[in-house]
Every structure is written in C-alpha cells, then in structure tokens.
C-alpha cells in the first residue's frame, strides 16, 4: 500500500493535482482568516462553520432546482450579512480584549452554528451535484472532476478581485490603514468600527464562496467545520500575516500533503494527520525561534 505511490506515478500525479486544486480552496479560506486576524487581531474558530453554512446555501439552491454554481454569487451576499450580524452581536465586544477571549467566544459561536445547522439541514453528508462531468488525462489514468477545476478557477478569480479591491478602493485603503495602526487610522478619520464590521463581513463572504465551491466539489456535513478552521490557521501561521503569495503556496502544499496522507495512511487518519501537522509545525517553529531566544507572538 505504502509503495503504490512510488510504483505507479499516475497515483502520484493524481494526488498532486487533487491536492493542488483542493489547496487553492484552502488558501481562499485562509485568506479570509489572515484578513481578520491582521485587521482585528481575533482568531475565529467559527471560520469553518461559516464555510459549511455557505455550502448549505448552495446546496439549498440545488435542492430547489437552481444550478449550484450560482451559489458562488448568492452565498457570499447572504454570508456577508451573516458576518455583519455576528460582528454586531458578539465580535465587537471581544475585538480589543485578550485573544483567548475571542477564541473561546468564537468557539461558542462554532458550537451554536454546528447545532443549528444540524437542526436545519439534518446530519446527513450532502453534496450539490453540478453535473460538470470529468476530465481524463494521461490515457484515462488520472481522473479530474471538472467541478474541482471550476472551483479552483473561481477561487483564483475571487482572490484576485479581492486583492485589487483592497489595493484600489477607499474601503480597502481604510482596512489596510486600520490593520497597520487602528488608533492612528481613527485619528485620521477612519470609522474603525465600520471597518471592522466590513472586514468580518468580507471574511464571511469569502467563507461563503469557499463553502459553495466545497458543496459542489466535495461533501458538506454540519460537524465538518473545525478541520477547515485548523487548516486555515495552519496556512496563516506558515505563511505569515499579510503574505498573500505565501498563503497561496502553503495552501497548495497543505492540499498535496493531505492527499498523500490520505493515500499512504488511509482515509481514517486524514483529519488526524492535519491536526498533527499543525502541532508539528508549531513545535518546529518554536524550536527554530528559541535558538534566537524568541517565541511565536
């Protein structure tokens, strides 16, 4: 089993391509996390649950006979307002407090969302069938569902749009200014409260896009949120805040790692290996920094 990967190069190519396409999606979620972490200095454990909620929106459109690909447009719009609502109710009370408070509060939101989704949509594993068919490569040895290619393409489009928006628009400038120095931005007339709300909304909208794509390509389930949070956290700490190419690269790296872990260790250890990788990365960075008598801040 272990050596199949090396004996049959087609499996390796398959895993790499799958991982790459999956990793682009992870990078999109991680981008949202990096944005809110950088601007508001909170870690959102409910990130994965926002993704799953976005996925359910697309799934519902599918149930009512609308093509789920339209979820890519509808889901972020709904999720933006969900994000604003969460910000107004909870997040604005934890923004400038201890980070652990924000972790715990969003953990509470995460549990709440999980259970509400469980009630609303049931505990079944669901999938919105896009009917895109598959692409065969290398004499039919490598199978790529077109939906995965579609989702990677859409993710890249959204990421580029967002980068341009952050660079050019007034709100984007305000967000970047607040991330650099919230107090100075306030003095210069930026309404930081609005900027925070918009940031959280944009993050939720990104989660919505990613969720809609995940519901088309993979499966969604109410309790599947936490692994997405951990993945995006991992990508952000590997890449560093505000390092967009880094986020994209480490997202793809994580995707490929996961596919190989799936092939080599077996599917039952897939999520476990992701969490273990997080621990190993943190420990590695801790030892690397401790040589300089520093620590992760």
């Amino acid at each position: 089993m272990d050596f199949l990967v090396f004996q049959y190069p087609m499996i390796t190519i398959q895993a790499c391509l799958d991982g790459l396409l999956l990793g682009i999606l992870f990078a999109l979620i991680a981008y949202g996390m990096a944005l809110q972490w950088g601007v508001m200095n909170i870690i959102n454990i409910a990130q994965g649950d926002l993704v799953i909620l976005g996925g359910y929106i697309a799934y519902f459109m599918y149930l009512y006979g609308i093509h789920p690909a339209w979820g890519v447009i509808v889901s972020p719009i709904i999720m933006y307002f969900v994000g604003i609502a969460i910000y107004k109710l909870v997040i604005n009370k934890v923004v400038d407090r201890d980070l652990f408070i924000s972790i715990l509060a969003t953990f509470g939101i995460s549990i709440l969302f999980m259970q509400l989704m469980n009630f609303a949509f049931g505990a079944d594993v669901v999938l919105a069938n896009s009917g895109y068919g598959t692409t065969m490569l290398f004499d039919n040895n490598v199978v790529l569902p077109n939906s995965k290619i579609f989702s990677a393409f859409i993710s890249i489009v959204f990421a580029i749009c967002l980068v341009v928006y952050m660079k050019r628009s007034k709100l984007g400038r305000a967000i970047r200014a607040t991330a650099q120095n919230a107090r100075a931005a306030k003095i210069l007339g930026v309404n930081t409260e609005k900027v925070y709300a918009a940031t959280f909304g944009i993050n939720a909208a990104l989660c919505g896009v990613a969720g809609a794509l995940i519901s088309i390509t993979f499966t969604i389930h109410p309790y599947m949120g936490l692994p997405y949070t951990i993945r995006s956290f991992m990508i952000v700490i590997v890449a560093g805040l505000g390092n967009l190419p880094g986020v994209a690269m480490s997202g793809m790296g994580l995707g490929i790692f996961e596919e190989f872990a799936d092939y080599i260790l077996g599917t039952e250890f897939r999520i476990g290996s992701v969490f273990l990788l997080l621990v190993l990365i943190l420990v590695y960075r801790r030892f690397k920094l401790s040589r300089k008598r520093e620590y992760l801040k």
Partner: protein
Amino acid sequence: MNKNSWILYIGILVFGLVAPFIFPAFKVQLSILCVLIVLATTWNIQGGEMGYNTFGNILFYGLGMYLCASVQVGMFFPLAEWTESGGEKTFVHTPSQFFQGMAAGLVVAAVVPTIVAGLIGYAILGLRGHYFAICTLGLGVAAGEISGGIEIIGAGQGFTTPPFPNIGGLEARGEFFYFLSFGALVLTFIAVRAIYTTRFRLILNAIRDNEDKAEAMGIETMKYKITGWMISAFFCGLAGGIMGGLVGYIDSTDVAFDGREMGVFMVLMAILGGKGTLWGPIIGATLFHFFKEGFWTFFLGWQYVALGVLIVVIVIYFPEGLMGWLREKYPERFGEVVDEADRKAQVELK
C-alpha cells in the same frame, strides 16, 4: 488554617461521604460532578494560575480513560478479542479480577499521562498565548481522530469497559464509582491546596503576569511550567480512568477525546467560577453541572445551542467569573486592604 475553615472542610467531607445515601437517585450525577470538579481544578493550574489557556488537558483525560480500561481487560484477557467481540459477552471478570484490574488500571491511567505531559511539555509549553491554545486544541482533536483508527482499542465501534461484577446479589456499582471519584476529588483538592500555599504558586503567577520578567529574575520557567502540566495530567488521567468505568463505554471522539464537550466544559467551569482561585473552579463546576443537567433535561435536542449561547455570554460578560465578581464587590473579604479615603480620591480623579 483557622477554626472556621476546618469546620467547612469537615462539613463538606461528611456531606460527601453521606451524599450517595441521602440522594440515592443521583449517585451517577454526583460522581460526574466530582470528576468535573477535578477537571476544572486541574485546568485552573494552567489556565488560571499559569496563564496558559489549554484545550489539551482532554488529551490526558482520554488517554487515562483508554489506558485504565485496556489494563483492566488486558491483565486477564486478550485485549484484541475483547474489543472484537464487543466486550463482556465472551469474557467475564470475577470480582477480584475486576478490582485488581481497576486498581492497576487507575495507577497506569494516572502515571502514563504524567509521563506524556513531561515528554511533550518541553515542546508545547514553549509556545505562548493563542498559539499554545490552538496547538493544544489540535493535539486533543488529533488524539481523538487517531485513536478512532486504532483497531486494538476498538477503533470506530468503541470499547466496552468491564461491567461491574455482581457480588452475592449486591448492587454496589453506583456507590463504588461514587466513592472512587469522591476519593479522586479529595486527593486533588488536598494536592492543589498544598501546592497553592507554596512558592510554586507564586512562580506560576509570575509566569502568568510576565514570563519574560520571571525569566529575568532567574526563575527557570520551563521547569515549573512542565511540573504544573504534569500535575494536571496526573489528575486528569485519574479522572478519565474513573469516568471510563462509570460510563461503561468508550468512544474515541464522543467520550474519551471529546473536545466539543468535556474539553470546553473544563475551561468554561473554571472561567464561570473564577480563574486563579482555589474555590472558583469548584463553585463553577457545581453551578455548571446544574445548568448543564437542566439544559440536557429541559431543552433536549437544543442543549448545544444553549451551550453555545452560554459560552458566549459567560466569556463576554463574566470573564472574571463569580469569584472575580465577589472580589470586586467585597475586596476586604479576599484579604485586600481597602483604604476608603484613597479609593474616594481615585474615584474623584476619574
């Protein structure tokens, strides 16, 4: 220790000893309460005293649970066949085998997590703040996922712990596990109280308040952090071993490494009562257990919704907990000297 506190301790001890006979219907609930108090009190050593907010103590709890049950079975029967057949159908423990196995299992369940904490402590405790929190969260979930894939301890289908033996028609299961967990609680309380009167607590508080300065003062912080974690791991493992026998069935993600329930509960209980105090986690755990049983009974199905709301409300509005609120209100009762004139002057300045 003055006379009043002696009366209090003896009163609680006597109450604890007679409680299962006064409330025979609540024996299991009282045992769970004891386990919860142990978990909250040991979490407080990290989260409250040391300032290292961990989600990872669930690792030691789950480890203790699996180890205790495995030793109890493995001492007398082949473990793989036991989990294969789904438990007690093929093999039956005699009473003496059951108690011997339980004793040995609890020792292993307490000692091995302590060693594990010592081994991983150097690597993990070098992280700070939220990195530590997320890393330990990952550790707990990873342990659950991985143990769910290991065949010999039941993998996905779970592990049935040995049923309590029937000694001459006497049904003493509830009493046995109650006194076991109450014993663990008393042991934990004595140990933690003893620790809190020594220099060790002051060092932990120094680490919480400013670790760099503590290091600059010549304290080997890493040594103390690891020791603190090992103490927590010891009692968490013990509590896990007892809880495994009490529940009677171990599942990797729903019972043992249950980060969504027990892992959050221990944090919440300590925060509800008040971090960094001796009595806070105990009061918090007791209150929380009442809350939780109420939710689980009256909002059946909605309990996680209620739990999520409860977490958000507690964290946002009562981050200092009950003891912190009392301290704010009656500072003189906590040994703080209040200078009324000074306080008034400060109020006027503001």
